[in-house]
């Protein structure tokens, strides 16, 4: 009863526009107070969150992504990929997806990926007569690759709350990430075949391909450095983020010479603001999570699931529906933070691998990013393209279908995620 009230209060606070961090932390305080638990747990939870070494990767990956973004790397990547595949049927769409995938490998955020590639790809695609909704959907969905292909801020956060290896999570994201890229490309080519209204590009001359590739090469090398550096054990994810930031400075200042001092200062400031906003949510959720644990909520829900849900298939079905519904209104990170402590014990009890479950959660969070009314990627594309939310949302619908299909594939074939970290 008290709990139902608390959940309702949380919704009211959120709808009043109380920042997510303080809504979660505040309800945590209320729960502590009602349960006669020590309020010292609030500052303790906040400090222990900020004291997590893995979370230090958040500002550093943001710095790296911002520096590259201000250095015009998104544009370079898109130009290079376009020079190679632009003349295919649906070539611009394919180039867009590949650019999203590449940018995802240097950025930990879906929003940054969607915004960066969207800014260059949307005008280009609409100019060449691609269907508007299809274009918007492509960008909104392609942007979500940002958190499935490492580095990924939601994976860092999941690793932090679930006490799982972030390296393993990063590696596990690659397989499903490539599968999604493949599926998106197939869909884009099929879509192009059956909607002949667009204008096909002429093949780019070799000189242009070479020039564009050379410009994009340093960034691709950086992505490779980060991923292989983590994979080989050369550095921890946090160190990889630091190295990536340093290398991004070298690329944009020394090699490309595109980053001005002013732009650097802006990237640092943007990274600071996003870091504070994100980490405070993690901290608020930690306080809320401690209070829930004291009220024995995760334990009760685990027991309830154990008693009522029959087998892993049923579990994943029910959880997917719950997460999809939650994803309509919840912000992506808060979903990971609230649901992981509640669901993971039950999932592990049913024999799911915690790394696999993390990848599953990330894909469900990607769905949340592109479902209305609250979906950050929808908003980003809406503002980049000056479109209506309804148009963007309708365009993403087929991609949502593809993502849910990938969940089925991941369930049927867990090694799609687990092969790289554990069996290679």
């Amino acid at each position, binding site marked *: 009863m008290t709990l139902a009230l608390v959940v309702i209060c949380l919704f009211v606070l959120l709808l009043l526009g109380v920042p997510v961090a303080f809504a979660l932390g505040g309800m945590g305080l209320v729960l502590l107070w009602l349960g006669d638990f020590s309020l010292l747990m609030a500052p303790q939870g906040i400090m222990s969150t900020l004291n997590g070494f893995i979370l230090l990767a958040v500002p550093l990956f943001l710095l790296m992504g911002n520096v590259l973004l201000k250095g015009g790397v998104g544009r370079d990547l898109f130009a290079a990929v376009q020079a190679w595949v632009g003349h295919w049927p649906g070539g611009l769409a394919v180039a867009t997806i590949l650019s999203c995938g590449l940018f995802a490998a240097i950025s930990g955020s879906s929003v940054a990926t969607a915004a960066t590639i969207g800014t260059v790809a949307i005008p280009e695609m609409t100019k060449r007569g691609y269907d508007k909704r299809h274009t918007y959907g492509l960008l909104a969905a392609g942007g979500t690759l940002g958190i499935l292909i490492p580095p990924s801020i939601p994976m860092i956060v999941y690793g932090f709350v679930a006490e799982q290896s972030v390296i393993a999570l990063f590696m596990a994201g690659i397989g499903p990430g490539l599968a999604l890229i493949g599926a998106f490309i197939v869909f884009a080519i099929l879509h192009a075949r059956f909607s002949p209204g667009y204008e096909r590009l002429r093949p780019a001359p070799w000189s242009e391909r070479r020039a564009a590739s050379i410009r994009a090469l340093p960034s691709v090398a950086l992505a490779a450095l980060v991923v292989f550096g983590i994979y080989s054990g050369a550095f921890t994810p946090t160190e990889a983020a630091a190295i990536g930031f340093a290398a991004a400075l070298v690329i944009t200042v020394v090699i490309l010479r595109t980053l001005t001092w002013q732009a650097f200062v802006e990237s640092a400031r943007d990274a600071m603001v996003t870091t504070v906003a994100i980490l405070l*949510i993690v901290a608020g959720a930690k306080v809320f999570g401690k209070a829930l644990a004291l009220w024995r909520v995760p334990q009760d829900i685990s027991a309830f699931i154990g008693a009522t849900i029959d087998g892993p298939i049923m579990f994943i079905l029910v959880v997917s529906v719950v997460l999809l519904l939650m994803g309509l209104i919840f912000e992506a990170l808060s979903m990971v933070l609230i649901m992981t402590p509640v669901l993971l014990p039950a999932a592990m009890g049913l024999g799911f691998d915690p790394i696999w479950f993390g990848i599953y959660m990330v894909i469900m969070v990607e769905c949340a990013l592109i479902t209305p009314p609250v979906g950050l990627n929808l908003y980003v594309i809406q503002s980049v393209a000056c479109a209506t939310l309804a148009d963007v949302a309708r365009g993403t619908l087929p991609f949502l279908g593809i993502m849910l299909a990938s969940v089925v594939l991941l369930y049927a074939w867990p090694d799609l995620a687990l092969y790289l970290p554990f069996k290679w």
Partner: protein
Amino acid sequence: MTVLDRLTGLLGWVAAALFVLAGAMLTWEVIARYFFVRPTIWAAELSQYCLIWGCMLAMAGVLRMRRHIAVTAGLALMPPGGRKAADLAALAAVLVFSVVVTIYGWEIFYDSWVRGRTAGTMLDPPVWTVELAAPIGFALLAVQCVAEMARTWRDGAPEPGGHE
């Protein structure tokens, strides 16, 4: 109010600089480990302190910019009067939270200060040097909250927006 805005704005820049510094220290750590096989004992720890102090000092400035992540779907449906009331209520909630955390955060800091407790890590600094960040950060946030409430009371709610 402008003095406060300037202070919290400045602290935001301090935080940004601390995060960049953390990146520099960890880059050095990797170089030291691979080229000299001499991992430092300070890089990981000091960069962590940069994160803690940076976040705590910058919270108030981020509130001033209205960049804390919030759900804006509900606000978009409200008339201006309703938005003003909602904004005041939201700020009041943040204020209460900040005041409580400031008080209890101070208690934690004070206890460690009196006991002379150290972190027990490789560098082993007194823990209050870290724990002090919470009461200072949340006290600043509380003051900024009051300033924002006064602003909203006078000028109405700011336009919703400012997501990530």
